[in-house]
């Protein structure tokens, strides 16, 4: 493209990155703010004080740990159930495959609020008190869809002749699967797990309907917006971002060569 095109391209890309990173930069910046009053939303002055005790806010830390545990459990369930589904959908021909794929895509093709309403009415209908169990069931459900679809896509781009070759060399099917297929699927499993984890960890809509008395991190943050925004919120969020960036960097060698 000519020079004007290049300039426009650069400008739009810069704007896009600006829009993406504006709130992130503000978040990190405000972790170094010394706020006056209860709301750390207006810049006052630089301090390192907030970073000295990142976990000073006990309620925040508890919500953080709750979300961490929930996301881990939901991810484990989702990758396990979703992996089995992906394997069956990708490796076998049977009647009803299309319908199952459609069912799997439902959480993607509907806003979360639809799922939240359906789940709440289910739990009220079967008289299941809202709490850790309903929260785990709900989270594992939407993670399941994303995990299954991610793994299905990875399996579709997978050379199944490798597995056949292993069998030709005398490996029983189960051994061929464990020794050949599973190791090759590790990057896909990691991707699915990371996706599930970040979806569950950051979920507000479904949680606000199904959590009952449990306070996850997003629920705590929404409440804090009404009560008090302590700088520890920004400190913790910056730490989470740092860890995410590290994980992303670690995962990226696996992504190379697979569009």
């Amino acid at each position: 493209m000519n020079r004007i095109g290049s300039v426009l391209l650069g400008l739009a890309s810069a704007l896009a990155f600006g829009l993406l990173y504006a709130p992130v930069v503000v978040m990190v910046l405000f972790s170094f703010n010394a706020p006056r009053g209860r709301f750390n939303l207006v810049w006052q002055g630089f301090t390192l004080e907030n970073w000295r005790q990142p976990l000073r806010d006990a309620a925040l830390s508890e919500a953080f740990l709750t979300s961490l545990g929930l996301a881990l459990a939901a991810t484990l369930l989702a990758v396990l159930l979703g992996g089995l589904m992906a394997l069956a959908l990708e490796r076998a021909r049977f009647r009803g495959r299309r319908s199952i794929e459609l069912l799997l895509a439902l959480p993607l093709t509907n806003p979360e609020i639809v799922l939240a309403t359906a789940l709440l009415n289910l739990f009220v209908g079967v008289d299941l008190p809202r709490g850790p169990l309903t929260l785990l069931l709900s989270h594992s459900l939407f993670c399941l869809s994303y995990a299954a679809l991610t793994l299905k896509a990875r399996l579709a781009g997978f050379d199944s002749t490798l597995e056949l070759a292993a069998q030709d060399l005398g490996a029983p099917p189960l051994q061929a699967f464990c020794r050949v297929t599973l190791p090759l699927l590790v990057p896909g499993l990691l991707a699915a797990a990371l996706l599930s984890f970040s979806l569950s960890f950051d979920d507000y809509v479904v949680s606000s309907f199904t959590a009952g008395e449990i306070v996850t991190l997003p629920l705590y943050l929404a409440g804090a917006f009404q009560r008090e925004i302590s700088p520890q919120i920004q400190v913790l969020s910056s730490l989470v971002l740092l860890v995410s960036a590290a994980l992303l960097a670690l995962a990226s060698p696996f992504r190379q060569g697979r569009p």
Partner: protein
Amino acid sequence: MPKRPAGTSASPASLRAEPLTAETLAAESSKAALRRQRQRWQGPRRSGVQRRLWPWLLLAPGLIWLLGLYGLPLLALVPLSLSEPLSRFGLETVFSGRVANYLEVLQAYGPILARSLGYAVVATALGLLLAYPLAFAIRFRGGRWQPLLIGLVVLPSLSSYLVRAIAWTSLLGDQGPVLALVSALGLTGPLDALGVLRDGRLLNTATAVILGLTNNLLPFLVLPLVVAMERIDHRLLEAAADLHAGPWRCFVQVVWPLSRPGLAAGILLSLIPAAGDLVNPLILGGPNERMIANTIENLLLVQMQAPRAAALTLVLMALITVAVLLQLRGRGLEELPLP
């Protein structure tokens, strides 16, 4: 690194260390075409009954989850939407075939529904204006920085969207940098007249909500577009150049049509969550910017009007489904380049 079994010569993409270039992609895709021909593996070598049974054994747990927690509860919303609350203070209801729920809901919340879809459409359109050039730049100008740039697009969405919304309130607040810049440029009056600002403020306006939504959906627009553009065979671009097509014509006749599936996928992945968003209107909008999810939440959790909430949810779902079908136009969901 997983060990490669002896006696096989094929090298799957996951084992490569080469950077993602048009050449390796083209080679990979022609291999993929061959692979697809011999793809469907016939399952473990077992008897016929076992062969038919094993996929269902693998599917069973996930299916129980999906049907029990989503499929059936979704269907159960239909009778619920035609019911009446038993009392004013509980979620218990009784079925009475009350179709009027739908009329009342549409009458009372029609404008909010339209507003939600409007915000989602504007945010997606704004996002596309930025996402398409960015995806184009990443694919065609990114070179060896491509993986890093893709990582940078993904990274912000790994931080909590609530914290990002809260950060926007600092940026857009009365003492924030954005309004300071606007007034320094003398734009307060004109932008107020255009309806971008309200009484010189940005918080609690549609602008703030749409900015928040656009920030959230940008990665979901960029990634499918990059994937779709990566699938464009570089030989097509070379052929177009050989036939004396200028860069502009090359874009219009080759890149744009071939990136359309990515566009469709991106629009779906952005529009749907944006239309049902709860957080941005809550934190960045005022009472006049509430969206449909806020209304449904209010009906269910505050007003205890489960039948009306169900009716509204089903209306939203129907509208979204129509939008999805229009976007897909006969294409299968699996044909879309989802990241």
